[in-house]
């Protein structure tokens, strides 16, 4: 319990900031008139609407109690690292080894995954992906770099 509804305050504030960004950028694209709209007309209006809505979300939330959000750090970091790992290694190793890497990192997000289980799972997933994308769909990129 906290004195303010942190969820809505943070969410609303971020939303308002995004709206501000779109609004400001839109001014640079040319507004035009309603009859002859420039590229920026609609984004500007939307950005403005976003900022107004954000105010209506944040202000009441400052005076209202709320449940604090709980972040599940372990799975979050594990999954984020796994996707980043895929992005970094996919070109260099090929998507099949990158898949194994994803599974290894992502599985670390759960306490129940032992090293042995994870390795077996990574191998199985890699094989499965190879079957579906390499042999089934035949996407035009080598599964393992070096293999044609």
């Amino acid at each position, binding site marked *: 319990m906290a004195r303010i509804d942190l*969820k*809505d305050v*943070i*969410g*609303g504030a971020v*939303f308002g900031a995004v*709206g501000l960004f*779109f609004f400001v*950028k839109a001014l640079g*694209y040319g507004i035009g*008139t*309603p*009859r002859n*709209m420039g*590229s*920026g007309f*609609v*984004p500007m209006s939307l950005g403005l*609407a*976003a900022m107004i*809505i*954000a105010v*209506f*979300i944040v202000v009441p939330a400052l005076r*209202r*109690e*709320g*449940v604090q*959000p709980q972040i*599940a750090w*372990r*799975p979050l970091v594990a*999954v*984020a690292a*796994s*996707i980043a790992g*895929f*992005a970094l290694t*996919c*070109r260099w190793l090929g*998507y099949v080894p*990158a*898949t194994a890497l*994803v*599974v290894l990192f*992502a*599985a670390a*997000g*759960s306490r*129940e*995954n032992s090293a042995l289980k994870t390795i077996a*799972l*990574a191998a199985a*997933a890699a094989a499965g*992906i190879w079957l579906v*994308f390499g042999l089934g*769909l035949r*996407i*035009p*990129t080598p599964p393992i770099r070096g293999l044609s």
Partner: protein
Amino acid sequence: MELFTIGFPAAVTPDNLLYCFLGVFLGTFIGVLPGIGGITAVSLLLPISFYLDPMTALIFLSGIYYGAEYGGSLASVLLNLPGTASNAITCLDGYPMAQAGRAGVALLTTKVASFAGGCFGILLLIFLSPLMSSLALSFGAADYFTAMLLGLIAASTVGRGSPLKGIAMVVLGLLLGGIGMDVNTGIARYNLGLLELQDGLHIAIIAMGLFGVSELIASATIPRDKNKRLSVSMSSMIPTRDDVRRALLPMLRGAGVGSVFGTLPGTGQSIASFMSYALEKRTARDPSRFGQGAIEGIAGPEASNNAAVQTAFIPTLSLGIPGTATMAILLAAMLMQGITPGPNLVSDHPELFWGLIASFWIGNVMLLILNIPLIGLWIRILAIPYNLLYPSVIALICVGVYSLNLNIFDVWVLLVFSLIGYGMRLVGFEPAPLILGFVLGPLIEENFRRAMLLARGDFLELFMRPISGTLIAVSAVIVIWRIYSFARQRSRYRPSEAPAD
């Protein structure tokens, strides 16, 4: 009727039959997995659909959609863990039935009720879509604009959460949809100087990040009950005469309820099944049986949510206005395949329209028949521990995203949206309205511009025209009503007693 002259012949080609089967099979499979619902299933397999030609792709994706709906009910009955949100109602009476040893009958009821609901929905689809299409032919740009606006407002404000936050997410989706080249002027908007953003963001990546990955992260920490020894034999499925008698009317009522909520934009399977349950409880002679294994409590809601799933196609196909986020993704898939849903769909692509409807019927029959022997397989899948499952799904998502353009940039975008999606879940902002806004954004802007051009910049035109004026009025009424009722609901509970999101 064209359904038989054009539809069925188009739907029973080997390719279409194969992908219809694959769709319902994979859909049921993914729906059975707890924590992964219909929209995630469709997003996951969206990249694969791009390799198929338009009609086959749509048959495939739709099969996944209603297959997942069915698969979710299996997990609800057997594990008390709904596969999709709309199956949560099935847990209420399905799980007690399973505990009383009547799992087989419960599962059969869900199958048959789903089939009945689906058929009813398809019938409505057959008759209402052409009707709505012809009505919409008289729509001008202003009318389309306000109709889409109404759809967005309905979809974002109806439901449990704060209507303001829902609208906020729609606006965010609209803004994100604006990223990319503006067709009217050729200016690249919001691409942050990056060439890759020139064409805007890809719906599949956003959907998989916001729904798929973020849902997987959030579900990873939910404790799972591991020691379930389940077995359901085929003979245990045979219902008693009493069961059949009790289940019949609820099925019909459920199909009706579901069809109403499926067609209306903003309401979908979840509300449909909830309403059906409430209706059955109210019309039952002995309401106290509900919650303890009343067969009416499954028959009604299951028929209802399948009817809603089928009728959700009515506004999507005949008007081009999706009522739910999943429909929005299907709409996006259609647009990417070069098909424009709307009043002209029936006349321009009759084989696609009628063939799709024929495939719905075929798919529902497949679900009914094939799932009887396959039930053992699904039960074995339910036993797969979640912690082994989600890393594989993440890997599938990564490769799926990469396969879209063979561009690593897309994977980074996936990461960004996964984090955004998780963040949104933490602060209680719904991702579904965002998808709707994203898909409809470019269309809404185009219609708005055209409307303003025709009206020579006069905003009042929107209110003056009969159709658009009515639609705006309805939108305004919905927004005001929802904000008012939400505010009242909130003030009724002290914050410390408020149910957690």
